[in-house]
């Protein structure tokens, strides 16, 4: 699945780079987007991450967390991470003040398949925080200059307030992308769809299923239903991609934690073709 190399800024296993928090923006409750710059700008200039890759962010005393990139500024090497406040590390990141520093290793993982997309119908599906790694896909598509058949973005959230990046949807639409949303539970004033994300797939216009590429990130149950809905619409299995999640400790295939069957999610993933993992995902607690 590896297309091209986007290797870490150091090939040394545990070498950390110091990064500085330069801005943060509240997205939805307990989710914020943080922008960091490399303290050593020479490192920043060498840093290149593909959409779907991740960094290990490190706060001394709290540990590391694997966080997908949500955007990389091409010129400065600044990195953006949309983070949900959950464990010790992310709590400590949320306590950071602007100008404070932390550690970073990366980028790691294979990333989304973003080559040879000319003439394709891209369908990006994100549930909850699962939109975070897809936002960097949207950013790269905007910059790619590639002529797509179509780009459809399907977004699900628990409630209208939980739809991630809602302030950016208009901008995505003006780039020519189709954006559809749905919520599990509506609140006052919501006029849009109510229901699970896979149901959105039933409604989109699909002129050529064989030209469709589905990239999906969210809870495993949601992704599985999205795959079934996509297959129902005639999209081939090997054109459906999932970004999977397991606990990671080293990110370089040495600690053994993130295994799923034969795969190390950190080095073989986190992005997999549906047909690579569908049998594995059927077995509970594998």
């Amino acid at each position, binding site marked *: 699945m590896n297309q091209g190399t986007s290797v870490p800024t150091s090939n040394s296993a545990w070498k950390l780079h110091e990064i500085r928090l330069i801005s943060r923006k509240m997205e939805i409750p307990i989710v914020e987007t943080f922008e960091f710059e490399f303290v050593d700008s020479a490192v920043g200039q060498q840093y290149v991450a593909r959409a779907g890759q991740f960094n290990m962010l490190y706060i001394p005393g709290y540990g590391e967390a694997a966080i997908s990139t949500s955007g990389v500024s091409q010129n400065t090497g600044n990195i953006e991470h949309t983070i949900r406040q959950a464990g010790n590390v992310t709590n400590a990141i949320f306590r950071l003040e602007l100008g404070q*520093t932390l550690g970073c290793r990366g980028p790691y993982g294979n990333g989304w398949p973003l080559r040879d997309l000319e003439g394709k119908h891209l369908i990006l599906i994100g549930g909850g925080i699962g939109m975070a790694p897809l936002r960097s896909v949207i950013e790269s598509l905007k910059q790619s200059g590639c002529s797509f058949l179509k780009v459809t973005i399907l977004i699900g959230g628990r409630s209208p307030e939980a739809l991630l990046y809602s302030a950016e949807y208009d901008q995505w639409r003006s780039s020519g992308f189709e954006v559809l949303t749905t919520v599990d539970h509506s609140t006052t004033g919501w006029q849009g769809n109510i229901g699970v994300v896979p149901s959105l797939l039933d409604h989109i216009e699909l002129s050529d299923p064989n030209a469709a590429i589905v990239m999906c990130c969210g809870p495993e149950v949601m992704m599985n239903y999205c795959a079934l809905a996509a297959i129902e619409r005639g999209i081939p299995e090997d054109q459906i991609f999932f970004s999977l999640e397991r606990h990671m400790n080293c990110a370089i295939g040495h600690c053994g934690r993130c295994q799923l069957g034969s795969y190390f999610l950190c080095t073989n993933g986190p992005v997999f073709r549906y047909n690579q993992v569908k049998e594995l995902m059927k077995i509970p607690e*594998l």
Partner: protein
Amino acid sequence: MNDFQYFRMDQFPDFLRQLMHSGYRVIAPTIDQEAIVYAEIQSIDDMPRGYTDEQKPGYYRLQHTGNQRFFDYAVGPHSWKRYLFPPLQLISTSIKSQDGWTFEEHVDEGESYAFLGVRACELAAMRIQDRVFLEGAYVDKNYQNRRKASFIVAVNCAVPSANCFCTSMNTGPKCKSGFDIALTELSDGFLMEIGSSLGNEMVTPLGFPTATEEQLSESESVSDHATEQIKKTMDTTDLRNRLIGQLEHSHWQDVANRCLSCTNCTMVCPTCFCSHVEEVPDLNQERVDRRKSWDSCFNPGFSKLHGTPVRNDTRSRYRQWLTHKLATWHDQFGESGCVGCGRCITWCPVGIDLTVEVAALCEEEP
């Protein structure tokens, strides 16, 4: 260069002295805590001469034979991974200043160890860990430095234990490659096979004579005899696919009813490589060490995701260990992760024998 040389039993101290004079700390079998373990020795008197071991599932006993032999036993609780991939290592230190954090990575230059008494299955285990730590996309420099700094004196097994099954895994009992020197203990001395130019440089000053035909043939019979004594077997024919086809077999629960999920099998396994890194901060959290230590897929916390283990019972944890070792390891590293040393059988506190479990798992469900 003579590939095969011979030295008398009374010249063994000269051989050992030569290793030490060449700057190596010699790690060899020695008796500690009622077992034969690997630790630093100063002379051949520190070695378990005249001892053997009795091993059964969940059972190990040191026995005094009273003979004059040095290597009449099988592998014990330790493996060389303890020296190449130490159970606890400091990997980095973070120091806080007014401007932010300074991150110092620790790279261990690698102690010059001579490992004396490495068995064929253990050579295979080293090759397997090399693939994990050196031959993937990322290199573990600490492991690499230690591996480079080590000198390997292998020993061909003469007395395997009842838990050995290297013949099934095609790793022993005779050492074929991966050593600098390989010894076979004969009735009155050692046959010495030179396996590398480093090994040749080491022994040239000793001026040992070329081995005779009789000595070569005695050495062959030691290995043949060892092979005959190995009774435990595991059918490895298409084992990867046979196990992957049985992920929902009811026998996994049967093992789980006996397994304590205590991690012993993974700790003694010479190929198990899982680890985790923990934070060791001072009270002010201004100086924070990061420490890497052996971990195990049998620990519930090992697979914890969003607060809950993915493998949330012993059944799924035992399945992960066994299928990784014997099946998915092939996909990841091109070979089995098991070398047939039998340690996981001996040191399981409830005597679970993976060869028996594998046979049961490969039976069709009733």
